[in-house]
């Protein structure tokens, strides 16, 4: 069968390194779709600005290094906080006016905000990328016997798994998360119990934006820091979200990693399709299980 299709089995190192790249991409898909799912859960808004916030996170880290000499590790904390603050301002200024409208307006509004943010950065920095070097503690690679694993990539995968599980724990297993889930189900009732739902909504949006920025900082040394880095990614993440369904946090995380791997595998066996494979998977999932693999409602 394989020989009939003229598909050669690639040597193991090639396969493994592509799988590693797939896993790295998957880590970013997972973190971004997680943020989208958290925001969508409470605000019922698909945050089109998510890609721009990811880009802002990367640029924030770059600014910190460039103008104040603050390195990667502090930036990992500062950039998400800054972008979260920007997100909170956006929510207070714009998003809160449209909650009572059709959800599609939320998509259009955040799309407009993304255009503005990306346009401003493109005006300043063009579409070329700025390099951001790997922190000195994480340079080099481990020889695993069957392949070389760059330290930084191992860190990104490990850190994103921790971030995803941490978010899952926060939402599914803590009191704060319980309030959040309750407010998702019935905001009016939760408000009647004396919980400040509007503030929770604002903070949730800030949290989602911060997650995107964290992913952006982690991406900065791997991909270049460029104004368009987010907008190219966000469409893929939308497809990931459609495949996983936004019903569950774990669903978003698992489908993010798995689709990253699928993309990596496609690069080995049929490179021409590696850009489109996630969209093809999406089409198949829509045919077989329209609500998404982990979706609760149609």
């Amino acid at each position, binding site marked *: 069968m394989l020989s009939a299709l003229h598909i050669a089995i690639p040597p193991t190192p090639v396969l493994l390194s592509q799988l590693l790249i797939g896993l790295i991409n998957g880590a970013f898909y997972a973190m971004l779709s997680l943020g989208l799912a958290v925001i*969508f859960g409470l605000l019922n808004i*698909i945050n089109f600005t998510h890609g721009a916030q990811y880009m802002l996170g990367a640029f924030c880290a770059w600014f910190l290094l460039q103008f104040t000499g603050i390195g990667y590790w502090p930036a990992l904390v500062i950039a998400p906080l800054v972008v979260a603050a920007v997100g909170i301002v956006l929510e207070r200024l*714009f998003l809160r*006016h*449209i909650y*009572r*409208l*059709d*959800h*599609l*307006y*939320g*998509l*259009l*509004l955040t*799309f*407009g*905000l*993304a*255009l*503005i*943010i*990306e*346009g*401003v950065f*493109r*005006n300043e920095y063009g579409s070329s990328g700025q390099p951001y070097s790997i922190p000195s503690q994480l340079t080099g690679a481990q020889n695993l016997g069957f392949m070389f694993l760059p330290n930084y990539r191992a860190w990104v995968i490990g850190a994103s798994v921790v971030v995803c599980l941490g978010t899952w724990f926060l939402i599914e297993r803590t009191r704060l998360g319980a309030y959040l889930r309750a407010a998702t189900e019935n905001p009016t009732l939760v408000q009647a119990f004396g919980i400040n739902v509007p503030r929770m909504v604002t903070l949730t949006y800030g949290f989602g934006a911060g997650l995107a920025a964290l992913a952006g900082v982690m991406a900065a040394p791997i991909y270049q820091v460029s104004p368009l880095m987010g907008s190219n990614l966000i*469409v*893929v993440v*939308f*497809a990931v*979200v*459609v495949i996983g369904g936004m019903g569950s946090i774990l669903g978003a995380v698992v489908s993010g990693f798995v689709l990253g791997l699928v993309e990596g595998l496609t690069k080995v066996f049929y490179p*021409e399709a590696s*850009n*489109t494979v*996630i*969209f*093809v998977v*999406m*089409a198949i999932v*829509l*045919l077989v299980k*329209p609500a998404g693999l982990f979706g609760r409602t*149609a």
Partner: protein
Amino acid sequence: MAGAPGAAGIGGGAAALSPRGNLILTVVLVALAIAAPFFFYPVFLMKALCFALFACAFNLLLGYVGLLSFGHAAFMGSAAYITAYGVKAWGLPPLIGILAGTAVAAFLGTVFGWLAIRRQGIYFAMVTLALSQMIFFVALQAKFTGGEDGIQAVPRGYLFGVIDLGQPLTMYYFVLAIFLIGFAIIYRTIHSPFGQVLKAIRENEPRAISLGYKTDQYKLLAFILSATLAGLAGATKSIVFQLASLTDVTWQMSGEVVLMTLIGGLGTVFGPVVGAFISVTMENYLAQYGSWVTIIQGVIFVICVLTFRRGVVGEIAHLVRRFAAPAKEEVVHAATRPAPGE
């Protein structure tokens, strides 16, 4: 989603003029369009007309069925590529080339629509966006599309073998005729019983289902029609500019048509036309400022969503209605108050 009708729903609440008002306005506008090339640059007018048809096709879906497609560039772009390739490489006559491009858009619309109507609301938008991004990558990688260069120097050729479309004025009237045909099809669709069912689906889909309408079939048919006409616009555009390029299949283009429709007025007959002219004019003047076009488009998006949801035409219609019948307006307003939540 389905439970949020009227002012809160996409497209709902924006009123059209009376049929007679529409007829008079149409006659006036057609007369203006015939005279226009003597006062304005024909290429500008042709560009605006192509985008106007594109926006009208898009509005059929968003304004009258309540489906936000974020991937309409796929239909416009693929039709443009097929037409450009057919005319240039195979030497097809322009009209046959345009029909071929339109047919491909119709086919794509059938497949995409069939997939996308399985999900509603926001998911529908994301699905169409993702599917159109697939077309973008195909256009980027396929051999016949010319990659980053696109298909350039497409000959305009001779209409029916005799009429030289190389003449700007002739080409303009050809484009105007195509636009009017497309516009008439949309107008007829909106004002037919089929169109009434579409509006019922927009306002309250579960109720339309409970009344016995197979809403999926209606939505699919509307999607195919919208995609086909978007393709017609793209095919015509590729003959006008003698070019099919990646710009036409990017998601930014899909966003632009949303913006045109939003500025002009969702769910109004003439809104998308007005929006397209505003948008194309704006781009003409701002082209030299690079990314400022994107920023200003973003600002307009934000303003439209926050304070100007009826759009130019919708706002005018609203004022006219309020002026004509102040008492009736009260009743309408109360009836279309947004329903809380889902």
